Structures are given as C-alpha cells and as structure tokens.
C-alpha cells in the first residue's frame, strides 16, 4: 500500500503542470465559496430594515388604533387562542422631526412581555433599559444632532437603521397620540429550520421564499414580520444569487476533477491491470486515488481559506469578518469540495455510467422541460424561477451539448475543405470536443452564466441610467431641509423654481410604505415618466406597491397616514424605482394635512450657469441641511450600483477561470497524444510556426464552438433573470437589452480564455520536446 501511494505520488509530481492546474482550479472554486458565503452573510445582516430585528415575528395591526382592541386580543390569547404565541406587546409608531429629518419612533410596552429583546449588530439590548420619558437612539448618524427639548436621550446605540425606541406612554406623548395603539407584536415559540439554514447558505430563505407558518384569527389580520423587510429580501436575493454562482464554480470544478480522474485512469489503465494481476485489489487502487483527491482538496481548502481571508480583509464591502461565519464558510467549502471530488473519483470508476440508455435520456429531457415550464408558467415564486434556471442548465448538459457534439461529429467529417490542413484542423477540433465533453460542458456553462449575468446587469444598468436621467433632472436637492424657507430661496437670482417634498411613513393593507407628498404637476409627471393629464387626480405608486397589491392603473389605493382618516385615491401611474427597496406612494400634496409628514426635501431648479453659486449659497444659509447636486447624485447612484454588482462579476469571472483551467487540463492531456503527430508533421515539412498556427486554429475553433454553445443558454439565463427573478424578488421589471457590446464582452472573454487554455499546453509540449 505504501508503495502504491509512493507510485501515485511520483505519478502526480511527474506532471507538475497538471497538478498545478488541478490545484488552482480547486483553490479558485473553494475561494469563491468562502468569499461568497462571508460576503453575503455580512450583507444580509447589515441591510436589515423595517422594524429592527427583534424577537418578534408577527404583527397584528389595529385599524381603529384603540387600546381596547389590544386588550381584547390579549384576553383572547390568555384564554387559549393562538397557542403558538408565547409573548405579546402593544406598539405605537410614528415619525418625529429631528434635525430636519423624519425619524421613526417605536413605542412598546415594557411590562407586557418580560423576554422582549432587540437583536442588533453589537449585541442584544433588553427593553428593560428603556425608562419612562426617555428614548434610546439607534443609528450613529444621529450622534451629533441636537434633539428637541422634549426628547430625553438615554443612550446612543450603533445600528444599521436609524430609529428611536421608547416606552409606549412616552412615545404616545411625543407623537401626540395619547391612548392610541397601532399594532401588537407577537413572539413565536420556536426558531424555524430555515433560520438555521441561513447559516449554511445565506439568502436561502429569501431565495426559496420561506416564511413563518401562517397563523390567523377570523377577525384580525396577522402579518409575518418578514414581510416588513423589503431590503432584506433584496439583499437575500443577491446573496442567494451569489451562492448559486459559487455552487456553480464548485460544480464546474467537480466536472474537472471527474475528467482529470478519468484521464488519469485511462492513461494508467494498463498499469492498473498489471497491478491487479500481481494481486493488488481494486479497492486498494481506488483508495489510493481517493486518498489523492482528499489530499488535493485539503491542501486547496487551506490555500483558499488564506486567500479568502486576505481578499476579505482588503474588500471595502465588508467591515469585519466574523470568525464563526468564516469557519462555517470554510467548512462548507471543505464539505462541498470533498464530496464533489469524491463523487468525481467514484463516478470515474463506474464506466457503465458513461453510457446512458436512450429511454432514460428522453425521460430526463421530458422531466427537465416539464420543470422548466413549471418554473416559468405554473408558479410565481422565486424558487420557481431558480428551478427554471436549473432546468435550463440541465437541458444544456444532458441534451443540447451532447446533441450538438454528436451532430458536429457526424457532419464535420463530411464537410471537406479543399486544403488538407483545414481538414486536419476541423477533424481534430471535433475529436477534442468529443473527448473533452465535460470540459466543454463546464466551460460553456460558465460562459453562459457570465453572459446571463452580464446581460441582466447590462440591461438593468441601461434602464437604471435612463431612469436616473429623467428622475434627476439638472437641479439641486436640499435634504434635511425643514428649516429652509422656499419663499426666500425663490427670490435668489438664478433660481427658477423651488419644489417642496413632504415625506414620512404610511400604511397600506400590505404593510408600511414610504409616502411622499408634492405637487403632482407636469414637471413631476415628467420625472416619473407619466404623461401628464390635468384632469386626473390620484397617486403614483412604484412597481413594488403595484405588484404586491396586484393593482393596476385605475384601481383605488387605500393609504393610512398616522393621525389621519384613510386616504382613498385612484392609482394614476406606476413608476419604476430600481434600487429603491421600499414601497413608495406619491401623493398630490393638496390631499395631505398630516403633521406626520415632514417637509424635509426641496428641489431647486436653477439656471445652468448659476448652479455652483446657488449650491454655495444654500450651504452657507442652511448649514444643517445637506446640499446635493442631482448630477452628483446620479453619478453616485451609478457608482453604488456598479459596486454592488462588482462582486457578482468577480464570481462569474472565477467560474470562467475555473472552467478555463478545466479546458487547459484536457488540452494538456490531449497534447500528449499530439506530440507524435507534431513530430510527423515536422518531418513532412511543417515549421514550428506552421504547427503553432495549426494548434492556434484548432483552439480558436474549439473556443468558437464552446462560446456558440453557451450563447442560447446565456440568453436563456438572462431572460429568466430579467423576466422572472427580478420581478419575483424585487417586484421591478427590466427589459432585456440584447446589446451586442454587452453580449460580446463575455464571449470575447470566453473565446480568448479558450484559445489561451488550449494554446498554452502546446507551448509547454513544444518546449519539452525540443
């Protein structure tokens, strides 16, 4: 056995390039897994919004805002209704104007639930800390703000969200809503399984659409708190996407391990036969190969972990890397890497598996097509969309690629170019395709993913920039501007118009929404892409509101603002708001008389040549307000957009890199057989240059075929991302732009990568044979 291991070891190091390529491929894939996991975990936990992540899971809103409603619910609960619920608190919510901004205030009753906690970034805070007449301020951005005299601040807490927490009586006082209660928050008795699954794959609960079990009362509406966290949904979806991409990298590297094991077995078939003849058992041979795979994966995990740590430290997206998360990520990589490598090795031994009967294949294709149709048409869930992506990839692997390779194999030999050299090239490419089927599949899969992502991001970017151009016309925005007086600003020279925006939070039947009240005139209509009609009075809602309410233009929208009778107005326009995670309702300001809305934004339209002068003057006159140039906001928005998707691109790039290594490996294996052919051609009078040209032509042909193979799949993935994933996850629509430039980039990347991967081995071979 020791001898066997020694022989295997010598065999391994006798081909250093193959070994390095194999290691690099594993390291890259594992690196991707670790980075993706840590990044998405961190993202998911930093983008929590809505009510802070508390120990509460359900909300029961009281439409009448009466304390008696709450007490009635509490009595029923005490009497044994809602047995799953173990705790309950009354809540009042509203906005306070602080430093010119509308800041949410949450008041909860301390004595109702002794175990209430708020889960925050720097640990848990017990609500017992809240004392009468004072508030706890969450969010560092308020530390330097002067608070109105009637708000006593007990302490500041760091948090991703900005809000105030107070005792319910204090909150009622501050909001001027004595005796009113908005809702009851309910605590569920156990942590569902998917909260644990989040640790294994961040974003999975969002991706798979998990939510808490529905509990209900006949006369009251009970909502899951998760519904109140749209940003988390967005981030969860991104995280889940990235997780899928990371898995893809592992899948691709699994293919590569499989293929290189098959090659190694084929190459040493005779040797293994001899070994068996002298009494070495098959099991022993297998164990040696498995041992080899284990050693490879273990060393790769180590290197990948170190690389990932270095990368994460450098990455500005992540502030600190939690130790446990990193460990979980690394062990996840270890388990995934081990299992793919082992499955690869074991599959490589089972030859029967390489020949699948027609019946099984047809059944498989039918089942996958059914899955695809189900995902697209039969369901509206996100998991359906992912199912469709998965089905598309499976179809590509089991049907499309083999069919095309078969077709080329049958057709190409009949295609006879005049020049014999071209014939050699065409046939050799065909052979390469057939022999390196797995590398080809892995490669085209990776390129397709790159195409899909690039097309989707490109389309979103096009739509987003178009939107920003109309939404942010040249002008200056003044934020936290409640102190500014529009009447005065209007007098300044160069100012053409000053527009006022009142903002706050309101409630729809589906939950909270941002509310903006302004004059919905022709100017505003243009900003939101609405064809202005003076006779139509109503509200604009963003796509998210429309999708969640399943409402169309013309339907009535019922909106509740704190301390006001509900507003009932028709929806006259649905607008896109990419990047906006929350629901948004735009009201005509002549309909609103709520003291809960704060006039905290002004839009100042200025003559182009006096923009900077007015900017300066605004800064001097209102030092507490924030002055923002629309052009700058636009640039900033695009910048943030690009950054969010940089990581996605990076991972797509890693997947391509892993696939390229696979192609390189298989080309290397094939160049061994080519050495003899090159020698022959050399005696026939081919120069080194001619041989290189030939190798290059064959590589390019191979690259072209791989890339062409990946185009339909890539467009399919992009289509699903635009038409299914985005509307289902974020409720916004993207029109798929098949821009040649956007499509060309990943193709060019793939083509050059493929050529490089197949030409490099040639250079190695020609070097070593000299």
């Amino acid at each position: 056995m020791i001898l066997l291991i020694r022989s295997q070891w010598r065999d391994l190091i006798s081909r250093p390039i193959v070994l390095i390529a194999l290691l690099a491929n594993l390291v890259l894939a594992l690196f991707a897994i670790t980075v993706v996991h840590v990044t998405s975990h961190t993202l998911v936990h930093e983008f929590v919004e809505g009510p802070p992540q508390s120990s509460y899971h359900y909300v029961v809103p009281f439409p009448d805002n009466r304390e008696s409603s709450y007490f009635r619910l509490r009595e029923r609960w005490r009497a044994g209704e809602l047995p799953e619920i173990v705790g309950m608190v009354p809540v009042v919510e509203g906005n306070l104007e602080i430093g010119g901004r509308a800041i949410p205030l949450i008041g909860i009753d301390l004595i109702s639930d002794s175990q209430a906690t708020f889960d925050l970034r720097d640990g848990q805070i017990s609500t017992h800390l809240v004392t009468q007449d004072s508030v706890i301020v969450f969010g560092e951005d308020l530390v330097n703000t002067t608070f109105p005299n009637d708000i006593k601040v007990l302490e500041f807490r760091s948090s991703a969200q900005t809000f105030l927490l107070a005792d319910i009586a204090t909150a009622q006082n501050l909001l001027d809503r004595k005796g009113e209660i908005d809702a009851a928050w309910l605590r569920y008795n156990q942590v569902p399984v998917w909260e644990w699954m989040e640790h294994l794959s961040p974003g999975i609960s969002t991706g798979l659409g998990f939510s808490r079990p529905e509990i209900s009362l006949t006369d009251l509406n009970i909502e899951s708190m998760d519904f109140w966290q749209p940003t988390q949904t967005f981030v969860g979806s991104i995280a889940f996407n990235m997780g899928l991409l990371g898995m893809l990298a592992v899948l691709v590297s699994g293919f590569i391990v499989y293929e290189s094991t098959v090659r190694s077995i084929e190459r040493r078939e005779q040797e293994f036969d001899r070994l068996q003849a002298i009494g070495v058992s098959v099991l022993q041979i297998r164990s040696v190969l498995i041992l080899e795979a284990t050693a490879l994966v273990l060393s790769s995990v180590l290197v990948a972990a170190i690389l990932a740590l270095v990368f994460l430290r450098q990455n500005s997206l992540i502030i600190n890397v939690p130790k446990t998360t990193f460990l979980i990520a690394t062990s996840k990589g270890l388990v995934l890497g081990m299992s793919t490598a082992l499955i690869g090795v074991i599959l490589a031994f089972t030859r029967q598996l390489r020949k699948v009967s027609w019946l099984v294949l047809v059944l498989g294709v039918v089942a996958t097509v059914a899955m695809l149709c189900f995902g697209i048409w039969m369901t509206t869930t996100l998991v359906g969309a992912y199912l469709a992506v998965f089905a598309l990839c499976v179809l590509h692997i089991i049907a499309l690629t083999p069919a095309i390779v078969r077709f080329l194999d049958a057709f190409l030999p009949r295609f006879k170019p005049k020049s014999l050299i071209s014939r050699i090239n065409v046939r050799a490419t065909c052979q390469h395709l057939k022999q390196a089927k797995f590398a080809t599949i892995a490669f085209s899969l990776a390129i397709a993913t790159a195409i899909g992502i690039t097309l989707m991001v490109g389309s979103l970017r096009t739509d987003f920039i178009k939107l920003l151009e109309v939404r942010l016309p040249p002008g200056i925005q003044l934020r936290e501007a409640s102190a500014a007086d529009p009447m005065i600003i209007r007098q300044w020279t160069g100012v053409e118009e000053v527009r006022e925006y009142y903002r706050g939070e309101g409630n729809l039947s589906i939950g909270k929404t941002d509310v903006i009240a302004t004059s919905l005139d022709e100017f505003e209509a243009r900003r939101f892409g609405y064809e202005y009609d003076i006779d139509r009075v109503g509200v604009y809602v963003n796509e998210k509101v429309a999708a969640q309410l399943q409402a169309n233009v013309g339907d009535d929208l019922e909106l509740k603002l704190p301390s006001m009778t509900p507003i009932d107005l028709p929806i006259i326009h649905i607008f896109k708001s990419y990047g906006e995670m929350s629901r948004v309702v735009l009201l005509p300001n002549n309909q609103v008389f709520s003291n809960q809305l704060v006039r905290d934004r002004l839009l100042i339209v200025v003559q182009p040549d006096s923009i900077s002068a007015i900017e300066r003057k605004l800064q001097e006159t209102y030092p507490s307000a924030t002055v923002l140039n629309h052009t700058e906001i636009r640039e900033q928005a695009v910048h943030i957009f690009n950054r969010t998707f940089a990581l996605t691109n990076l991972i797509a790039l890693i997947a391509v890199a892993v696939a390229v290594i696979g192609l390189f490996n298989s080309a290397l294996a094939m160049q061994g057989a080519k050495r003899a052919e090159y020698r022959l051609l050399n005696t026939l009078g081919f120069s080194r240059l001619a041989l290189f040209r030939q190798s290059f032509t064959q590589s390019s042909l191979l690259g072209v075929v791989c890339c062409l193979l990946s185009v339909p799949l890539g467009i399919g993935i992009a289509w699903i991302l635009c038409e299914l994933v985005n509307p289902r996850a974020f409720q916004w629509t993207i029109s798929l732009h098949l821009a040649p430039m956007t499509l060309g980039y990943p193709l060019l990347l793939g083509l050059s990568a493929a050529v490089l991967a197949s030409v490099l081995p040639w250079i190695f071979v020609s070097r070593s044979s000299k």
Partner: protein
Amino acid sequence: MVIHVQSVSKKFPDGKGERWVIKDVSFNIEPHQATVIRGPSGVGKTTLLNLIAGLIQPDNGEIELILKDSAVSTSLNRLNTRELLRFRRDHIGFVYQFFNLVPTLTVQENVLLPLALTKREHLREQALDRLQKLGLQSHLNAFPAQLSGGEQQRAAIARAVAHEPQFLFADEPTGNLDAENSAEVFKLLWDEHERLGTNLVVATHSDDIGAYAARTIHLA
C-alpha cells in the same frame, strides 16, 4: 542523389554529463543505392538517420546531400531552419516504426498531403494508383486507426513516396509487424526504390532486407 557523411559526431546529455552516441562516422552513399544501417539497440541508428534527414544537427562533421541533375551539393549544416524544412519536405520521404499517418486524415488524404505541401499535384494519379497496387483501394476513406499494422505501414510507404522524393529513409519500418507482413513491407520499399530510383536508407534489426541491400553499414 549522393550522400556524403564526413566524420560526423553527435552527443546527448546523459544524466549530469554528456555521451557521444555517434562518434566520427563517415561513409558515402552512391546514387540509387540501397543501404541498411545495422547494430544493436541503443547504438545510434535512429540518431544517424535523423542526422542524415536533417531532423537534428551534428555536433561535429558535415553531411552533404547532392540532388539529381545538380552539380551543387547541399550541406545540411549550412542550411537555416526554413531551408532545411523545405529541403526535407521536397526531397525526403520518411517511414517510422509507427505513427506515420495523421490520425485525422483518411488514408487517401494522408497520401495526398505531401503532394499538397510540395505543390506536386500532377503526381496525384500515380499516388492513387500506388494505393491500389498496395491493396488499399478498399480503405481509401478509412482513418488510420481503422487499419491493421501492416496496412498502416503500406499506407505509410505510399505516403512517403507520393511526392517522389530523391531520398527515402525508413527507421525500423517493420518493428511492429509479424514476419510475413514485414517481408512484404521490405519488398514494397525495395520496389519503390527501384522504380523511382531513390536512395533508400533503412535502419533495422531485421535480416529480411539484407537480401536486397547493396550495402550494409554496421554501427557498433
């Protein structure tokens, strides 16, 4: 049509040092002569053949090939890589022990390849006739992997002489074949040598060719 080999030596790196494989070898091969190079394994037969064919360069000495109807001799040492390549392509045919055919070309295409490379398309008919005579007519569109060892060597000979080179070199052309096949291959080589009037140089262990050869060079 004449080969002059003048005190040629060739060394190879051997472990840490070097080893002279060919040491001070000289001989002449006259026009239309058939020559056998003999000697035990590892003595340097292949090396010598590769030297004469210009596939490797000697460390000492000079190799001259003189073409038919040409007064000038071509010294292989003085040709640059491109000229050497062209000389080999135009005037030399080579048969190895195995791997003589491009695996992605059919038998017929393999035979036509040297014609395409040397632009001697007018020899096409003769080349195809020769394939017939060699008994390969039913395998014209087969790929090399589909042929038996003997058929492969016959096709290799057809390829080596298709462009009617003036020199024909064969390195253990029968090393992989049984006695019957190997006798046949030697006969075919001999026939082509006779018919085309080429210089034939064969490196071999086998005695079968001895009967034909006008001259034997022993390496020891």
